[in-house]
């Protein structure tokens, strides 16, 4: 008989995964830490490839100290964790993660897994958004941070949320030309949350500074804008939008767009974690408690992969979930440290909620997109095709009928706006149409591997 599996697996080496691994090592464990990326740091603190020379301050701006601290923490773990970079976890079955690394299939058997899978941009499709020259806000930031490139000569920033203002500022500071910042959220919506946002302290001040920056530097800013179309022939030559009751055309050769983030929940889904509809984020989110435990024994969640909360919260949750693992294995606990984490996590709740309300996902804009708009960019399914097939009260049935969300990205991009289009066509709440269920492989792998 083989010995029972006792491994702890951590998926994701961003802020949440790093702090989780740190606690596990402190408790005397040697976790397997895997990340699809070639290096640690996750999204916010992603490290550029070897040979890049810009200093932390240029790469990470006001959060350079946090980036340095997180990287140092991870570097301190090397040798004490079984770190597997460039390793994708593409399937999760009870007790086993299936992996792909350098074209090779592998598997990690685990007793406990902490899923710290992070997030991606949440978008609203609009006519022209598939053109070369249009990227997500996160994509535009990655181009700059890890490749030293701007996505165009004259870049328009469109969407809402902190990342909109942050990436626009980072572009301008790096020497790119910012055509404009178009925020779909009216100023009044944000102002209403100001009292609650004050609780964020330093984060609130950083946010205010970020939002003042373009104005102070002569960059055009429109709040409460309604995007209509990204125009161009081969690429992008403009962005048509409505603002202040009039229609305008902004000349630009690239558009970075995003409306907040959405968690990468596919592995949690495969693990059988139940999902609940979150009224504020308007998304189905995996169920877990403040200690990171899910209803599925052995599965723990932390960071933006469970619910968007930002890097600081991700670090706290990663550590907290790891302590739950330590407790569930019957190992000694550092109770004062756990109490500190619980307090720090609870203290962020008000600020995060206000942030969600200050930069809401513009669901009406998604629901009302013109029929001809490509909704699913993988399978080129239009909003009109989904509306025409809107008989079933369920996104998964609509998927079978239209191929929406059936393509290579598995509905990561079109899922949330698709749900809004379907709900509006049916005249029901978006919570009622369900969500596209996660399927393996969570990202495409060679056919031979999936067949095994």
């Amino acid at each position, binding site marked *: 008989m083989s010995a029972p599996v006792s491994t702890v697996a951590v998926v994701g080496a961003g802020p949440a995964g790093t702090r989780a691994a740190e606690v596990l090592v402190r408790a005397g464990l040697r976790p397997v830490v895997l990340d699809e990326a070639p290096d640690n740091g996750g999204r916010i603190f992603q490290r550029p490839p070897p040979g890049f020379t810009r200093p932390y301050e240029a790469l990470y701006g006001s959060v350079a100290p946090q980036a340095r601290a997180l990287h140092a923490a991870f570097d301190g773990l090397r040798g004490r964790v079984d770190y597997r970079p460039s390793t994708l976890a593409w399937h999760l079955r009870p007790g086993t993660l299936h992996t792909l690394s350098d074209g090779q299939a592998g598997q990690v058997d685990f007793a406990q897994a902490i899923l710290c899978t992070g997030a991606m941009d949440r978008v609203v499709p609009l006519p022209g958004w*598939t053109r070369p020259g249009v990227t997500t806000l996160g994509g535009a930031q*990655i181009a700059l941070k890890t490749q030293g490139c701007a996505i165009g000569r004259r870049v328009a920033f469109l969407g809402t949320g902190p990342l909109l203002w942050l990436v626009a500022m980072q572009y301008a500071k790096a020497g790119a030309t910012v055509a404009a910042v178009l925020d779909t959220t009216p100023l009044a919506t944000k102002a209403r949350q100001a009292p609650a946002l004050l609780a964020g302290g330093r984060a609130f001040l950083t946010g205010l500074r970020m939002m003042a920056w373009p104005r102070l530097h002569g960059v055009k800013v429109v709040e409460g804008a309604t995007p209509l179309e990204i125009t161009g022939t081969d690429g992008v030559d403009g962005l048509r939008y409505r603002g202040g009751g009039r229609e305008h055309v902004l000349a630009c050769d690239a558009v970075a767009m995003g409306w907040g983030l959405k968690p990468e929940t596919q592995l949690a889904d495969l693990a059988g974690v139940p999902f609940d509809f979150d009224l504020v984020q308007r998304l189905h989110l995996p169920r877990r408690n403040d200690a990171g435990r899910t209803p599925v024994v052995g599965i723990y969640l932390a960071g933006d992969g469970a619910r968007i909360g930002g890097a600081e919260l991700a670090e706290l949750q990663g550590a907290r979930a790891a302590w739950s693992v330590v407790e569930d294995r019957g190992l000694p606990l550092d109770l004062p440290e756990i109490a500190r984490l619980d307090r720090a996590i609870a203290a962020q709740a008000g600020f995060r909620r206000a942030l969600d309300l200050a930069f809401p996902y513009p669901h009406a804009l998604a629901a009302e997109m013109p029929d001809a708009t490509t909704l699913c960019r993988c399978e080129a399914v239009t909003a009109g095709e989904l509306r025409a097939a809107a008989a079933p009260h369920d996104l998964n049935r609509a998927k079978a009928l239209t191929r929406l969300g059936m393509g290579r990205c598995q509905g990561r991009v079109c899922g949330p706006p698709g749900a809004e289009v379907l709900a509006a066509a049916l005249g029901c709440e978006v919570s009622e149409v369900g969500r596209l269920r996660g399927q393996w492989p969570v990202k495409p792998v060679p056919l031979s591997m999936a067949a095994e």
Partner: protein
Amino acid sequence: MTLVRLAETARARVAFTLDGAPAEALEGDTLLTAILANGTHVRTSEFGDGARAGFCWMGACQDCGVWVVGLGRQRACATPVRAGMEVVRL
């Protein structure tokens, strides 16, 4: 799409081929950067709705698929360019 190199331009040059033609990138470029430094698109939608050039840059949207001889279909944004790579746009 015109990618603009703003920083980190002192890296070593890497020669590869794009659709059979010689092309040049910098060491540390992903294929997405390498291709867009030499052209304006990365792939053509199989549904006839035009050219694409990736979207998320983080390996999630899958809209940057290219063919690399010897490696097969790869996401350009998640694959580092290497000297001598033969890259074919699909």
